[in-house]
C-alpha cells in the first residue's frame, strides 16, 4: 500500500507542472478589496503571477516541494484545509481533521512531498497532535503527539526532521481562541526525527512567551515568540537554537518595546547571515545579524507581518498591500495575510534519501 503511494507521488511530481513554470518564487494569502480572499503566487519583481480564490481568511500555506500545489490552512481553530492546484487556480481537495481535532494554522510537506504534516490540537484539551496525510490520495495515514499544548507552526528542517512550535496555550473549547492557562503555560520547541520526538527545548525564565513561528537555515532554528505575560515587561521575541545547545535570545535594544510583545513571523535571509522577525503591532521588522546578535537594520511598514528568504536577502509583506521583494517594491490593492512563504528549491538527492528513511521507519 505504502509502496504504491510512493509510486503515485513520484509519478505526479514528474508530470505535474513545477513551481518554476508558474513563475512564482513565493506564495501569500491576501484579502481583496471586495472582501474576498485568495492565495497569490509572487515573483521576484513583486508582481503576482497566479491567483487561487479561497472561501475564507487563511493563516498560512504549505508549498509542495515539487508540484505547484499548496495547502492553505484556515485560521485556528480550523476545521478545514484546502489543497490548491496553483497552476490551474483551483481547489482540488478539502482536508477535514478527525472530529476531536482542530487544525492550528500551519502544516509542512515531507521533503519528497509524499506526506503532509499538519499541526492540530484536541479540541477539548488543546493537547497537541500532528496529523499525517498522504498527498497522493489525501487520506489520513497517521497521527502522533506534537509534544506539547497548542502547537502552531511545524517546519521541515534542512537536516531531515521537523521542528514543532508548541505554543503551550490551552484555549477555551467554546471559541477555540480564549486563553485559559497563561499563568501555568509551558511552551516548547520540539524536534521530530523519523516520526519520534528527539529533543524538547523550553525557554529559561520566559515560560509566558508562547513559541509560535519557526524558520531554519542550515542547522540553526529561529523561533518567534509572543509574550503573554505582563505588558509592562519588555522581553526578547527571537530565539535561535542549534540541536543540543543552549538557546540564544535576540533583542532589538531600545526599539524592542515597539514590538509590543508580539512577533508575527520569522525568517532567515537567503544567505543565512540575517534573521528577521516582524512586529505588526508597531509596524516594524528588526533584522538581526545572526553572528553578532546586533540589529542590522529595522524595516518600517504599517502592519508588516510576512517575511521570507528571497535571493540572498529577505522579502516582506504587509497588511496595507506593500510587497518588498529583491527585484521590486509594489503596493498592491490587497491586505497581505500573516505569512509570506518561500517556495523551496528542489531538494538535493541527499535529503531525498533521508526522506526515504523517514518512510521506511514509519512503515
Amino acid at each position, binding site marked *: 500500500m505504502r509502496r504504491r503511494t510512493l509510486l503515485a507521488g513520484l509519478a505526479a511530481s514528474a508530470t505535474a507542472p513545477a513551481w518554476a513554470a508558474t513563475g512564482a518564487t513565493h506564495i501569500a494569502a491576501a484579502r481583496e478589496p471586495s472582501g474576498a480572499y485568495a492565495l497569490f503566487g509572487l515573483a521576484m519583481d513583486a508582481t503576482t503571477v497566479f491567483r487561487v480564490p479561497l472561501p475564507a481568511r487563511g493563516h498560512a500555506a504549505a508549498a509542495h516541494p515539487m508540484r505547484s500545489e499548496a495547502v492553505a490552512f484556515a485560521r485556528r481553530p480550523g476545521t478545514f484545509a484546502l489543497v490548491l492546484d496553483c497552476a490551474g487556480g483551483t481547489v482540488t481537495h478539502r482536508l477535514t481533521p478527525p472530529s476531536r481535532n482542530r487544525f492550528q494554522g500551519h502544516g509542512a510537506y515531507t521533503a519528497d512531498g509524499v506526506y503532509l504534516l499538519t499541526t492540530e490540537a484536541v479540541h477539548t484539551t488543546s493537547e497537541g497532535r500532528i496529523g499525517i496525510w498522504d498527498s497522493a490520495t489525501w487520506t489520513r495515514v497517521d497521527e502522533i503527539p506534537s509534544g506539547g499544548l497548542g502547537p502552531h507552526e511545524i517546519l521541515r528542517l534542512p537536516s531531515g526532521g521537523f521542528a514543532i512550535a508548541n505554543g503551550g496555550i490551552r484555549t477555551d473549547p467554546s471559541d477555540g481562541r480564549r486563553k485559559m492557562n497563561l499563568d501555568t503555560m509551558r511552551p516548547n520547541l520540539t524536534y521530530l526525527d523519523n516520526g519520534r520526538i528527539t529533543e524538547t527545548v523550553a525557554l529559561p525564565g520566559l515560560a509566558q512567551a508562547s513559541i509560535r513561528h519557526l524558520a531554519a537555515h542550515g542547522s540553526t532554528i529561529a523561533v518567534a515568540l509572543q509574550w503573554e505575560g505582563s505588558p509592562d515587561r519588555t522581553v526578547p521575541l527571537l530565539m535561535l537554537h542549534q540541536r543540543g545547545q543552549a538557546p540564544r535570545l535576540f533583542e532589538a535594544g531600545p526599539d524592542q518595546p515597539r514590538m509590543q510583545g508580539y512577533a508575527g513571523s520569522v525568517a532567515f535571509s537567503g544567505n543565512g547571515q540575517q534573521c528577521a522577525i516582524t512586529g505588526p503591532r508597531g509596524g516594524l521588522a528588526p533584522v538581526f545579524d545572526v553572528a553578532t546578535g546586533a540589529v542590522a537594520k529595522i524595516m518600517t511598514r*504599517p502592519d508588516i507581518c510576512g517575511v521570507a528568504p528571497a535571493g540572498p536577502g529577505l522579502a516582506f509583506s504587509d497588511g*496595507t498591500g506593500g510587497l518588498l521583494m529583491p527585484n521590486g517594491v509594489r503596493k498592491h490593492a490587497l491586505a497581505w495575510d500573516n505569512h509570506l512563504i518561500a517556495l523551496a528549491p528542489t531538494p538535493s538527492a541527499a535529503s531525498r534519501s533521508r526522506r526515504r528513511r523517514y518512510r521506511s521507519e514509519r512503515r
Partner: protein
Amino acid sequence: MRLALAFCVLALPAMADIDAAVDDHILPRLADLSQATTALATAAETGCDALQDPFREAAEAWASAAHLMFGPGEDGGRASAIQFWPDARNATGRGLRLLAQQGAEAWTPEALARASVAARGLGALERAIFDGAAPCPLTQALTADLAATAAAIEAGRRDGFAATLRTASAEGNTRFLAPEEAEAALFTTLMTGLEFTATQRLGRPMGTFAEPRPLRAEMRRSGRSLANVTAALTALRDLAATLAEAPQTDAAFARAISLAEGLDDPVFAGVETTGGRLRVEALQTAVNETGRTANAEIGAALGVQAGFNRLDGD
C-alpha cells in the same frame, strides 16, 4: 460636464496636505522642543536652583510634540530617552539612584548617552529638580543630554524624514509606497496620540473604581499631569485640521479641551473621591469620543483601514 467634474472631486478621498503637515505642524513643534530643552540646559549651566519654570516649559513643548515621534523620534529609542513613561517598575527611580551613586564620571552627557533611557530625560529631571533626587552636576548633565536628544530628533526630522514623507511613492522610498501611506502614517499618529492620552495620561491615575492610582499620574511632581493632557489635545487638534476638513472632529476636540480647562485638578488627586473621579472620567470619555469621531470622519476620508495583521493575534 461641470456636474461630472464636481462628482469626480467629491468621489476622490480628501488628500491631506503633507507639506502643510510637515511645515506647519511637525517641524515647528520639534523646533519648540529643541529650543525649550536647550533653554533648560542653559539655565542649568549657572546652577540648579531655578530650573522649575524652564522644566515646565520643556514639558509643555514635549507634550505638544510627543505624538510626532514616529520616524527619527522612535529610532534607537530617542523618544524614550526624552520621557520614559509609563514606568510601572520605577525604572527611572532606580536608574537615577544608580547614576547618583556612580559619581562624577557618569555625570557627563557622553556617559549618559550610554546609560539606561529610564534614567534620562524629563522623568529623571523631574525627580532631580522637584525632589532633589540628584546632585547638581548630574542634573546639569541630564539637561544637556535631553537637549542633545531633542536636537537630534529635530535634525533627523528636518533633514531626512520630512523628505521621506514628502517623497512617498518615489523610487527607493520603501517606508511610504504611495502618498496615501504618508497620510495614513500621520492619521495613525493622531489616533495613537489620542489613545495614549486616554489610556495612559488619564487612565493610569484613574486605575479602577475600587483602586484609584493618583500617584501614577504623569509628571505629578511638577504639577503638570493635567497641563500635559491639555497641551497634547491642543496639538492633536491642530494635526487633525491639517489632515482633513473635519468639523465633527474639531467640535469633539473643542469639547474635550474645554472639559480639561475646566477641571480644577492639576495632578488628578481627585480620582480618590467619587465626584473627582467622575470628572476625570468625563474627560477621558470625551477624549475617546474624539478618537471615534476622528476615525469615522478623517479615517474614512483618507481611506485608512484598521490593522489586518496587527489585530489578528496569531
